[in-house]
């Protein structure tokens, strides 16, 4: 699921794809390193890939129908891509905040994991506009 129109896909240059693919790596490494420094178990030790993990991954993609499929295009009709991404990223992070405080949820007890979320929003091609 991409949540982008054909026109948008054509207008993305390769450097944005490269940035979207590579940027999460150093941010995740930084977050994982900080967590390790604070005594948390390593990512693979803590969360081996499982069927449940795959299911969660698919469901997380389902979020994007709302964030990128609905909210971002509407935000882009009233502000530029950086402001729209900042607003959406802030509300997106706030939406996730309670997950870090509920023991039954995988994010519980991983405060630095929130850093990984930072890569999630701000990349949006400046030329891409919202729906008319």
């Amino acid at each position: 699921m991409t949540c982008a129109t054909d026109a948008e896909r054509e207008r993305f240059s390769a450097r944005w794809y490269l940035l979207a693919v590579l940027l999460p790596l150093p941010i995740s490494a930084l977050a994982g390193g900080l967590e390790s420094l604070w005594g948390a178990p390593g990512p693979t030790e803590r969360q081996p890939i499982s069927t449940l993990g795959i299911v969660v991954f698919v469901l997380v993609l389902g979020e994007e129908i709302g964030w990128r499929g609905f909210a971002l295009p509407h935000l882009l009709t009233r502000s530029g891509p950086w402001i729209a991404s900042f607003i959406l990223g802030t509300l997106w992070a706030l939406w996730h905040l309670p997950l870090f405080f509920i023991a039954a949820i995988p994010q519980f007890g991983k405060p630095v994991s929130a850093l990984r979320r930072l890569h999630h929003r701000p990349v949006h091609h400046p030329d891409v506009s919202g729906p008319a």
Partner: protein
Amino acid sequence: MTMSPLAETARRTPLTTFFALAFALTWALLPLARASIAVSLLALFGPAAAAVITTVLMGGRDWHDLRDRCRA
């Protein structure tokens, strides 16, 4: 034809309606997450459900845009 207050709000302020629904639908389920992992998984559908509900409340005028932007 008269619109419901919620539909009228959605048409006037779609973004506010979307975010309010996304937060409400998800956060309302979180206290029940301790009972079952299925509940926390269901809560992840809050934003998607909010997008669909808001689009329907707006009269479905953005339905094709939403579908086109989210196809696999």
